[in-house]
């Protein structure tokens, strides 16, 4: 316990790095989600299939393998990546693949007739997207995206595998040094503490997500259900 109190400043810095990594990753993942999610709803088959290939590829290959590949593979094509940025690339493409399914589900849940009637009124495709679809889709996909954020916070712990100095890596280093100095490993207490911190953060986020869902549920009864089942799938992956 003393050790944890002593190393609290270090752990706090690690936690800050974790949040930084998670936020940057979420931003990039959201961008990827929108692009590939929209491609997934496209009427053009080539677009739809390339979106599907992207999504399936990232969801079927273990995230660990994906991350190691980005980190060790990038130098081969002449772009050596720092651990932090390798994690951003790998986690955001993975999160983007999961997010794309959420976005696609949200758009598909809007009745087809609305698109058709909007088109019949002479709206251009981007106008249909901006005035008709987006306002209906943004709210119901908000809860699954907070869920995805919680998953990404957990997934950042993987960055420790390539040596990015985030929360978990900091804790590992503290355990290693303390073992060297005292001959006793404090792994149980330190890793237990780390687990509790992750729990407090992610469980609060999950509670917040549930509340958000309940609030939106009456506004978007049917769509909410559909998107929720997609979120369930995304939540499985980590």
């Amino acid at each position, binding site marked *: 316990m003393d050790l944890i109190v002593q190393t609290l400043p270090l752990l706090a810095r690690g936690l800050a790095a974790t949040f930084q990594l998670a936020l940057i990753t979420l931003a990039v993942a959201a961008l990827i989600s929108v692009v590939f999610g929209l491609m997934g709803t496209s009427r053009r088959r080539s677009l739809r299939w390339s979106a599907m290939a992207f999504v399936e590829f990232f969801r*079927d*290959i*273990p*995230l*660990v*393998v994906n991350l*190691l*590949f980005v980190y*060790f*593979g990038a130098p*081969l*094509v*002449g772009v050596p990546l720092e651990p932090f940025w390798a994690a951003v690339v790998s986690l955001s493409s993975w999160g983007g693949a999961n997010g794309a399914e959420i976005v696609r589900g949200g758009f598909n849940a809007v009745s087809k007739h609305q698109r058709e009637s909007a088109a019949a009124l002479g709206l251009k495709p981007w106008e249909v997207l901006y005035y008709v679809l987006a306002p209906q889709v943004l709210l119901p996909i908000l809860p699954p995206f907070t869920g995805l954020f*919680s998953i990404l916070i*957990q*997934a950042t*712990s*993987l960055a*420790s*595998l390539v040596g990015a100095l985030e929360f*978990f890596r900091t804790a*590992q280093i503290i*355990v290693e040094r303390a073992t060297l100095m005292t001959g*006793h*490993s*404090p*792994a*149980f207490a330190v*890793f*237990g503490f*780390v*687990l509790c911190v*992750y*729990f407090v953060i*992610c*469980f609060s986020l*999950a509670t917040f997500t549930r509340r958000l869902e309940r609030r939106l549920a009456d506004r978007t009864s049917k769509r909410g259900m559909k998107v929720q089942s997609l979120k*369930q*799938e995304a*939540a*499985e*992956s*980590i």
Partner: protein
Amino acid sequence: MSYDFSFSYIWGAGPDLMSGLWMTIRISLLSIVFSVVIGTVGAALRVFHVPGLSHLVAGYVNFIRSTPLLVQLFFVFYGLASIGIPISDFWSGVLALSLWGGAYNTENIRGGFLAIPKGLGEAAGALALRSSHYLLLIALPVGLRVSIPAMLNTSVSVLKNSAYLQAIGLAELTFVAMDRVAMDFRTLEMFAAIGAIYLALVLALSFSVRGIEHVLQKPFRAS
């Protein structure tokens, strides 16, 4: 920058990859079986509102789902050893993966139990069935069927997440491949190989469970 991709290198690494693959399969299968058992027990405890225990199960599920698997794994492998309970890397992996999958399966199977038509429960009550009989004769055969697709998702995740075990030095597929990369620097070959193997495993698992699902649904289809 050109990179000469060598298929013969992958071929040469075949025996190593196969031993890693075998480890991955053994760990995954054991963990999937245990996670289904944990999930069934956990879901039964929650659905029947066993005093005390059902809250404990809810806490376990929330805790596992709100913490990273990698940290759970380190806690089991290094943490337990540091307080005098050393577990081998193999069984640490099985324990961590089973507890992780078990939490998700508890929710999956609970969903299946809750989907059982109310009339079946009432009929069981009218026949004065004991709850153990209700569980064995009605809840399990009907409820488990409903939760099979969700359990498939969890099983696929357990299989993919077995790659985490390379972090504690267990010689499974990813570890073996990384080991070769460290020796020979044939990065692209090794990642292409294990990527293809993982894809094949995931697809094989999906198909086999879809087959089982098909067989199980048989009595419920109109002939």
